[in-house]
């Protein structure tokens, strides 16, 4: 599958679901999300208050003025404070009193995010994330995943060259590694805005592997996780409340679609060089990986633009129907 075809397909998948969330209510509030199961990402509730003396910094002063004139505008004031505090999460209550100073009490809930992306063989799991907020944690993990993807593509290029793959595939893998360097920096900057620091990737690259092994890894990490990573990034580029996150993920979504297209091209090339049993193992691995994505969804986040559960299910279903069900498509 060529890059442009796949990108068009992924855009169909995302745009078909946009009305539900971006459209009408943003991400579904945490109250509507099923309680987290043990060992799944959890939701925490927080309360915070502050006393502001006037005049405040201009962005805050603008919202204080608006709030004083119109109670409905107080939401923007509390949201701005949450942004200043790098809390992330969903605002629940906002109470403002003007009494010489500005007394603000607000509450919000946050949930821990999960991520998708191409991971290399030999990856050492990340240590605890250095992040004070859920948003920062998600971005730090995403930056870490982008960084480890650099190793994954370097390894892929090395192995493709070893197995005599067409020069174009090798070059595309190297270009993808370069993309991931940029992504890691980009998302790392976003994480820093939310007070988080990505872990350093620790990868011990394996020896050159057989085509069978590469095919299975490519099916899981590329055809499934990278493809769905492109879908999610595209979704985020449309829905993230933070405009800088939207902007960053617009770039990332385009590149990830190209990487996913590479995975499908590798899949098609390897399929002609492995036997029937191996092809069956590859297909089974792909089905299992897609199923695992559905059972470990990221928590919704309006700031990050991560979809609510029903939207995620829609994205998965449409990706299944349009991309994965067609095998190598």
């Amino acid at each position: 599958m060529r890059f442009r075809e796949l990108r068009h397909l992924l855009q169909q998948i995302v745009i078909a679901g946009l009305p539900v969330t971006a459209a009408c209510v943003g991400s579904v509030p945490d109250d509507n999300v099923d309680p987290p199961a043990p060992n799944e990402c959890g939701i925490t509730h927080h309360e915070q208050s502050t006393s502001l003396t006037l005049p405040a910094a201009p962005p805050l002063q603008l919202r204080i003025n608006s709030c004083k004139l119109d109670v409905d505008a107080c939401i923007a004031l509390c949201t701005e404070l949450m942004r200043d505090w790098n809390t992330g999460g969903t605002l629940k209550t906002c109470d403002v009193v003007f009494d010489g100073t500005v007394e603000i009490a607000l509450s919000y809930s946050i949930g821990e995010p999960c991520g998708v992306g191409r991971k290399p063989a030999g990856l050492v799991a990340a240590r605890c994330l250095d992040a004070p907020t859920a948003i920062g944690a998600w971005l730090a993990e995403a930056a870490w995943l982008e960084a480890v993807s650099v190793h994954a593509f370097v390894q892929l290029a090395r192995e493709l060259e070893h197995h005599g793959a067409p020069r174009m595939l090798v070059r595309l893998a190297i270009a993808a590694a370069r993309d991931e360097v940029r992504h890691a920096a980009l998302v790392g900057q976003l994480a820093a805005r939310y007070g988080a620091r990505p872990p350093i990737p620790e990868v011990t690259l394996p020896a050159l592997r057989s085509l069978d092994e590469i095919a299975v890894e490519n099916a899981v990490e590329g055809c499934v996780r990278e493809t769905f990573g492109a879908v999610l990034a595209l979704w985020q580029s449309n829905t993230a409340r933070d405009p800088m996150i939207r902007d960053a993920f617009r770039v990332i979504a385009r590149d990830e679609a190209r990487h996913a297209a590479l995975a499908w091209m590798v899949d098609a090339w390897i399929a002609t060089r492995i036997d029937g049993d191996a092809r069956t193992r590859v297909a089974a691995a792909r089905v299992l990986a897609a199923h695992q994505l559905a059972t470990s969804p990221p928590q919704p986040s309006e700031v990050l633009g991560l979809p609510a559960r029903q939207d995620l299910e829609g994205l998965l279903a449409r990706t299944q129907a349009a991309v994965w069900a067609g095998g190598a498509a």
Partner: protein
Amino acid sequence: MRSRVHGALPTALSLVLLASCSAIDPTVPDPTRPSPEPPPSWGVPITGATMLVTRDGTHAVVADPDRDRIVSIDLVREAAGAVRALPPGDEPGRLVEDGLGRIHVALRRGGALVTLADPSSLTVAERRDVCPEPRGLAWDAATDLIHVACTGGELVSLPAAGGPAVRTLILDRDLRDVIVTGDRLVVTRFRSAELLTLDAAGAVISRVKPPTVKRIVPEIELGQTIPVVDAIPAVAWRTIALPDGSLVVSHQRQVQGGIKTTPGGYRSGCDGGPVEAAITIVRPGDVPQAAVPRAHGTLPVDVASDELGNLAVVLAGSKFVQIVPAASVGGRDDDECGEDNSDGAARGPMIDDRLGAPTSVGYRPNGDLVIFYPELPAVTLHRRDDLVAGTPSTTPAHATIELPGPFGYDSGRALFHGQTGVGLACASCHPEGREDGLVWTFAELGPRRTQSLAGHILRRAPYHWGGDMADLGMLMDQVFTLRMAGGAATRSERLSLGPWLDRIAAPAPVVRDVAAIERGRALFDDAETACTSCHNGELLTNNMKFDVGKGVPIKVPSLLGVGARPPFMHDGCATTLAERFGACGGGDSHGKTSQLTPAQLADLIALLESL
């Protein structure tokens, strides 16, 4: 994307407020609490480009249309200076500096050009009536003339030093910006985004438009062939000249993929909405070129260039300013999704000062950037070194200079200009509260020409051509909340939007041949033509629905300002008023005009142009 009340928040917020206020008499405002009722309407529709940075870089001069005043800012001392109040309703707009440092300001509703002696004192040297709705301004160094482009089609030239106009040309209506290029003038038209080139004698010697580009329209049903459609130029918010003589047009495009009345149905194209921001470059002697779109967002109301050709594009609906490096401007838009596929291409930072919607931008000669935010009001100053490609978008402003005067707030105004989930604002299709001159193809309804909101909207219910929207609340629910993916409007927004829109005036009438207009009025009032059987009353509509020979009942539109809004009829089939009286206008099922001679029709059209 605009902040929005989500999920359980309204209830929770209400509970907190009720609990806190339970011991307080609700009829007495509590000064320690946010006002439960929204304030009176404030501000006018965003037009963009109402700030000038002087050539020497020492001052910015802000025309503040929301407060009818002009404000000087000393950029060296980083402090606000003189404030020049104008009569209420003047609505100051574009500004230009002449060779002696005088500042000339177009008064959009005041119908005049006001000349200020210098950018520091803002002493009024002269006020000259120009035309009913002056828009764009340019200073011609060779002739020392100020050229004023007007909505009614007048292009008026006045001596910069003062005195009456020396030339008035009548061009097409809906003029916007005017630029001096050698001994020629280039004048833009707002909705069509057309550029007219005039020779020294004032004759139109060429007409060009930004190019149409290709876009894909992802369909909901999977597996279908993805259609490729035209994205046509529209709504030229702002046109400027680059240092090399090229012109830059900051405009919109209509992605012609068709829209639906279903939730989220106003989406199309790669960026979500059926309207996209665009930059077109017009190099001398070359055809206009669509530049690689590096300014994704809503309402590209202003653009400025530094001396190196780097651009700053104001995306008022998205509430940020996008820097487009000069090296990126040259790229051609040849991708169906408007993306730049060249790896590693430079992207400029996106400036988000978090001060509401920016409306105007300008560069100092040293490359520093000045941005005007009308609500607080304030200007921010960004250093050149913070604007280069690769700089984080989070770089804060070097300085925020708060301007004197009252805080400006109107939730209806904010909603009208704010970007929704499909990348669209109300003002995308209703720029300046009017209309975009476009026909939209609805899957369920067929072609529908955008209707103007200007001119007593609250007295014109029901709404839409089918008259199927009983009131503004229903329209907000159906169109803003659902089709545009705007989310549920707050109580304040619902209360505020109507009164804010209702203050937007219909386009000023064009009165040229009084005798013809009077003859036309007699025909209009004649019982045989039956125009007034439907187009009656102060607003020239009875607000009812009729089938005027088009096969479907259509809401009678107000004829106030009708001459300013071609194409005509609900499906836009008549590109001129004359065509309205041809086959597509419904014949004698739409009034009775078949008996009129060509001369009488011309008189009737003269009247319609003057309404």
